[in-house]
């Protein structure tokens, strides 16, 4: 019999590892996806995942159903991931397996020059990489809001709750992020025809 989430959380409060296993199975992809997008490398994302589910296990008694469990989980993942990135930035480390912001801009410029040619000749994969790199090149706070809103489909109030800021701040960050993305993606915005979607 499938246990409801409320029952699972009750079991987890009593330290039931089986309940944790079910929750991990249900939410691991979400956690990994968000962690990976914010930290931009697998090793950091793995650390964030470990810390996140450990935090869930240890602090489940402090979860009082004021939000959904998913929102609570988002909050933990996002905050852990942002902390990892900030720590890394303080140490002036670059992400291990992703292109840093410094590297992306010349790359984008090169691709933009290529894209001045008819877009129909560009490969879909290239466009995907470009769009992904454009998002990755955004400052941390802007990138986080874009990821949560555009790709995770969260509302402004939910994002405000996760980031512990006002809805106005969320809207402002989203507005500025879109303006930057528009500049970065300008060659493709002007194209009359784009490669087919996946």
């Amino acid at each position: 019999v499938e246990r409801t989430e409320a029952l699972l959380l009750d079991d987890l409060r009593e330290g039931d590892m089986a309940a944790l296993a079910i929750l991990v199975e249900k939410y691991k992809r979400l956690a990994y996806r968000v962690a990976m997008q914010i930290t931009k490398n697998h090793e950091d994302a793995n650390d964030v995942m470990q810390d996140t589910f450990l935090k869930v296990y240890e602090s489940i008694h402090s979860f009082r159903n004021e939000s959904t469990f998913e929102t609570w989980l988002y909050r933990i993942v996002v905050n852990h991931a942002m902390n990892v990135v900030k720590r890394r930035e303080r140490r002036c480390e670059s992400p291990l397996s992703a292109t840093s912001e410094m590297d992306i801009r010349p790359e984008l410029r090169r691709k933009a020059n290529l894209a001045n040619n008819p877009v129909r000749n560009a490969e879909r994969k290239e466009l995907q990489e470009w769009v992904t790199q454009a998002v990755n090149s955004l400052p941390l706070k802007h990138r986080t809001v874009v990821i949560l809103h555009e790709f995770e489909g969260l509302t402004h109030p939910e994002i405000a709750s996760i980031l512990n800021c006002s809805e106005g701040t969320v809207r402002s960050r989203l507005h500025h992020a879109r303006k930057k993305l528009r500049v970065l993606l300008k060659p493709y915005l002007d194209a009359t025809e784009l490669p087919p979607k996946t």
Partner: protein
Amino acid sequence: MREQCRPIQRDLSDYMDGTLSGKKTVTVAHHLRLCPACQRELESLKRTKALLHDFYLQPDMPDDYEEQFWSELQEVVEERPRSIWWAGFLIPHSGANVSWQTFAWQGQNLLESAADFWHSTVTRPIQWVFRWARFSPLYTFILFVTFGLFAASQFLQLQEEVSRSGFHPIRFNTNIDSEELMLFQRNRGLVNTREKMPGLSQPLSEQFAYRQPVETDIPKEEIPAHLGSETQLFRVVLIESDTSSELLVSAQLSNPQSFLAKEDFAHPLGIVKAPFPEKFERQKRQSAGFINMLMDVPLRILSITEVYDSVKL
């Protein structure tokens, strides 16, 4: 960009998401109909959003990582005891020994179960009531009306009791038998008809009839006195009278519900039979019975009335 386009373009992102307020949405829509520049701006924002949705590559978890992650997490969880959020207050150093950890863990479990019990038995029912009250004004109204009717019925019942007995059953908190009071009150109005008066507490075991009580000018005063070797303050009532009749000592009490029962009444404390001692000393420590009753009555309400023509029935 024109000056009037600046605030509109700031709102275009929200306009696209549909998160703008109604009034601003109308303003932006109206402006967009007239401004090709802002139309282009909106179009490019929409295309940016579409590019993101169509071509952004969301990372997915590697297949071999899933198993690896769970086994790693399981190890970490099993190695670490669950956090003891309050133990930090008691155990400042992280290197607390196992017995402390166990003790703290058991304590935490106990606290958590107590908190859960409180939540389920007290907090949740209150929340339930107030949730209903918040969502249903009718429910709130019914609650208030029910409470009001209950309070009104209690008040009316009380007033009926007061009007029947002549005194307030709750506020009247002296140690006076209510039946005695009522009878005395009734008899007071019938003093000339030689109605019988019920027996009072000791030392009187007989019943007396009496005529209109006459307030005498028997002096009452309170003076300090010394008795024996001890220097103490005693309350002494001096009764100096040459009357050979008996004296009724009573306390004049005000009816707390004077708007219902207009008259005050006197509570008989006893009858001092003549001849009585010229000096009637009251000492709390030694007092008992009748004397004790006298002691408990404040002097300002102490009334001494001559009773003559007493007849043993």
